[in-house]
């Protein structure tokens, strides 16, 4: 369980997050949407300790990120993250991208890590690309390798930061399919995305953020058919 309690964050004088409260239970899929600059990505980065926050507390499976004794490296082993621009290691093949962390962090043998990586490549549908370098993969393939790289650490949570917004339209589906399957298999997911079809299919909860605050939360039906705030209505008009 991830508990976000009254979290506020500033970049200098600029407040990016204001009193954010949210709880994500195991097995849930949460979709975060909102205009750019509303603090969605920052919130994800706070959850795995990539960004510090100045007020409030984030607790992951009972471990508080505010506690200076918390080992953030250890914590991140359990929280996978997928980025907008894939961020694959360009000097390594798809397979090496996936096996690096299990071998270095979990100390798995090359063979064990390789086997796991092949299983994952199979799962994301591109086992034939194991030896390809990122530069020779399409955007959709790169993003699927990135998902496999995160899954290789067998995380309890997966966070997606606009995973399809850098992709050509015809590649969006292949990435979303992988994500839908993950959600259906019971992975706990936090997804920053504007893909409303994805939200409808798997989101247990949707939160809408604006100016660093959670303005609205609810199920897909509630949010989509009957947004309560003016800002959410405007936003939905724009993206649909």
């Amino acid at each position, binding site marked *: 369980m991830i508990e976000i309690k009254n979290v506020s964050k500033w970049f200098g004088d600029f407040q990016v997050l204001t009193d954010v409260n949210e709880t994500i239970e195991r097995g849930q899929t949460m979709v975060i949407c909102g205009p750019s600059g509303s603090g969605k990505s920052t919130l994800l*980065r706070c959850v*795995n300790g*990539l960004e510090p926050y100045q007020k409030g507390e984030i607790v992951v499976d009972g471990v508080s990120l505010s506690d200076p004794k918390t080992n953030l*490296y*250890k914590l*991140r*082993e359990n*929280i*996978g*993250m997928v*980025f*907008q*621009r894939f*961020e*694959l*290691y*360009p*000097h390594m093949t798809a397979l090496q991208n996936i096996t*690096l*962390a299990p071998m*270095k*962090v979990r100390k798995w043998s090359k063979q064990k890590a390789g086997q796991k990586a092949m299983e994952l490549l199979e799962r994301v549908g591109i086992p034939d690309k194991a030896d390809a*370098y*990122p*530069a*020779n993969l399409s955007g959709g393939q790169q993003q699927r390798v*990135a998902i496999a*790289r*995160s899954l*290789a*650490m067998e995380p309890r949570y997966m*966070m997606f930061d606009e995973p399809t917004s850098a992709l050509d339209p015809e590649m969006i589906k292949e990435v979303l399919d992988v994500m839908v399957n993950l959600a259906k298999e019971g992975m706990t997911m936090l997804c920053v995305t504007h893909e409303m079809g994805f939200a409808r299919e798997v989101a247990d909860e949707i939160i809408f953020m604006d100016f660093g605050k959670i303005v609205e939360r609810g199920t897909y039906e509630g949010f989509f058919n009957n947004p309560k705030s003016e800002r959410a209505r405007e936003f939905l008009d724009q993206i649909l």
Partner: protein
Amino acid sequence: MFDAVTRNITFLMGGFLVTLELTFFALLGGIALGALVGLGRISKRPWIYYPVTMYVNFLRNIPLILVIFWFYFVMPIIAGSSLDPFLSAVISFIIFEATYFGEIFRAGYQSISKDLSAAAYSTGMTYAQTARYVLVPIAFRRMLPSLITQSIVTFQDTSLAFVIGLQEFVRRTSIVDNLEVRSIQLFGFVAVVFFIFCFIGSKISRHFEEKGRKTGLL
């Protein structure tokens, strides 16, 4: 046709050896100091950033020959005793070339996106692991062509050490020329030797550049 060269080949090659030694130490020190200068140039601490930036801007805007000249003639006034020309040249080259290498390192460090390191951290890797397996290998591959090119420039620059009387390749050639009076032949030979080394170097640099481009690293 090459009589003046062949008669003095041992003496000339002795000079070339000094040139190679000077290049070696200049690169060793210049690259090591340059790596630190590059870090200083991206430092968020003003008391590191500003002095390093001033140092870089100052040295990049004066001719190398003046640095060599001043260092050799001013150091004895400060230190109280005169320096050996070779040592003086090595130090001048290190502090001068480090500013150029520093800018190459700065660009290399800055070429790595914040999200790429975030991606590595998010798999549970520590700072040391991320640096060792991801950041340094990528930055190094990206910098390699520029590092080789700057090394070639340094190699060529070493001939400027003749101003303080260091008997490197060009200086010795000029000594031979004073006796033999065969300027075209002798300095033609020097040019050919420099050309061969630099041409090979630039081919190597080009090779890494193309390799980097093919793998999407550049």
